[in-house]
């Protein structure tokens, strides 16, 4: 069963023909495909915002007789569900994006790493792949082009948020615990099975297909100079119309909230559990890689929400989902959670709170991967903006 999706906004993806993208690709040289993506300024839509063209260029330049394109469909960031929608409705576009990436970097094998929670999407995706094979959009000699062989298989996650981190994802594919690797080397030269591997988010690949179909200039009509294009947002929480939305990057938080019916919010968590909590006083800030970055998750908190409960929920998440290999993330998350519990009980001194904030900064600096580095973000921003809310609690308030 594929769940119905409450869409409240028409998406550009509906108007782009995936076949047009691939036809455009095979008509070009590899370098031209790379140049087109570079001209678009497309940055990773999973949250980190790494320029897609840089990743592809590195993978294209890496030496290796076999290369891989991996679609990161391990959408696990709390409050994010746009990839589910894309995979349900625009899987062809994602596959076209993967195929284009394969052409550009010289990969022959593609893998969609689908999170275990989305197992119900698998039959649909298998159908899409089978249909594409039947139409020569996958398999040997794609669209009749000699030497352009590429196929995609689906591999399932098994309930581990950290596998959304690209090196952990690769570890998982290799049959290991999903523990992020030391970097460098990066997957673009030492990835899956030690081969050059481009790992891209679902949405990134879909946009890449759009760019190759409609051109970089079309894409750059939206967004800011450093954050080009449109972006999908997963909006949930205290809003009138939750759902998946498409907005240009650079949109202010206030404007976004107006569209979704969340004007009276007290705060918005941008970027999920690993993102930042923005108070109402800063709603004029823009959502863009140069200001408030996001993978697309917007969780809105109404006036009556207890921000400590929010912090506690997120930290419980990290304590459980940390892979546990590095000290700052494993032990630090646990200490921060204990601290939040103390705050809720009203037993945390200002001195200890400062210690915890310092610890949070250490986690941001010294953790091995992005998960640990971003685990304290929510708490630190809540402490920064909502001190009056969280200090001096009386135990009855719990």
């Amino acid at each position: 069963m594929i769940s119905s999706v409450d869409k409240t906004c028409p998406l550009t993806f509906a108007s782009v023909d995936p076949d047009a993208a691939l036809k455009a690709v095979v008509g070009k040289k590899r370098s031209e495909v790379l140049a087109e993506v570079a001209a678009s300024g497309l940055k990773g839509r999973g949250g980190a915002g790494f320029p897609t063209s840089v990743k592809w260029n590195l993978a294209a330049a890496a030496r290796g007789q076999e290369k891989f394109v991996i679609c990161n469909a391990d959408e696990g960031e709390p409050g994010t569900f746009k990839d589910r929608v894309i995979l349900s409705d625009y899987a062809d576009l994602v596959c076209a994006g993967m195929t284009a990436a394969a052409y550009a970097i010289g990969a022959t094998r593609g893998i969609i790493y689908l999170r275990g929670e989305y197992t119900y999407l698998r039959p649909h995706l298998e159908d899409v792949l089978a249909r594409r094979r039947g139409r020569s959009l996958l398999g040997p000699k794609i669209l009749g082009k000699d030497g352009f062989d590429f196929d995609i298989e689906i591999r399932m996650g098994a309930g581990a948020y950290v596998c959304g981190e690209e090196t952990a994802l690769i570890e998982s594919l290799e049959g290991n615990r999903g523990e992020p690797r030391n970097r460098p080397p990066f997957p673009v030269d030492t990835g899956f099975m030690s081969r050059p591997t481009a790992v891209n988010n679902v949405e990134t690949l879909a946009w890449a297909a759009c760019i190759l179909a409609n051109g970089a200039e079309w894409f750059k009509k939206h967004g800011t100079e450093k954050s080009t294009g449109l972006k999908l947002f997963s909006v949930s929480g205290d809003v009138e119309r939750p759902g998946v939305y498409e907005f240009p990057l650079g949109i202010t938080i206030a404007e976004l909230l107006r569209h979704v019916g969340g004007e009276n919010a007290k705060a918005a968590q941008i970027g999920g559990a690993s993102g930042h909590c923005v108070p109402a006083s800063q709603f004029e800030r823009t959502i863009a890689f140069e200001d408030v970055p996001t993978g697309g998750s917007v969780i809105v908190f109404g006036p009556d929400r207890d921000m400590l409960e929010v912090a506690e929920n997120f930290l419980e998440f990290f304590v459980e989902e940390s892979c546990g290999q590095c000290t700052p993330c494993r032990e630090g998350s646990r200490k921060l959670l204990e601290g939040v519990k103390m705050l809720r009980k009203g037993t945390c001194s200002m001195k200890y709170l400062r210690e915890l904030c310092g610890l949070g900064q250490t986690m941001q600096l010294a953790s091995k991967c992005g998960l640990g580095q971003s685990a304290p973000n929510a708490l630190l921003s809540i402490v920064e903006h909502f001190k009056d809310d969280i200090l001096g609690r009386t135990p009855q308030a719990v």
Partner: protein
Amino acid sequence: MLVTESDKIREDIRKLTETYGRDRSALMPILQEVQKKYCRISDIAMQEIADLLSIHPVEVYGVVSFYSFLDDKPKGRFIIRLCRTISCTMQGKARVAKQLENDLGVLFGQTTADGLFTLEWANCLGMCDQGPALLVNDQVFTQVTPDKVHDIIEGCRRSFAQHVSQKREEH
């Protein structure tokens, strides 16, 4: 000849290695298939898999224990996983949780005495716009209310009864 349960598991795993190969990268798909069929990955299964993939059983155990959807201990036929992340919390997760406990007679982390249901928490299921959400095995239920809990559980019972009678007919 008497075929024991462990012989059956061994044979199943051997067949799976024919499909997925014997490289370590075959580990996850094999574990997922075993989990699906047996609702757990027993110590016999882990050792057999390790042997066929030329890795150590403790490595398989390390992997199984790492992922939330893989279990070495027996679980219920239906694993109900309620999303505990903030969006679902804000949409009334707590009351759904309470009703699940009431109707199943077990707490989170436990399995019903008849071995039919295991109740667990899950992190974000990606249904934040339609919370509270829960998974029953692979199937997702959204906008769950305490009232709907009963229907979901009864639905599982019905499908299990159907499954059992089908099996009987086959025999």
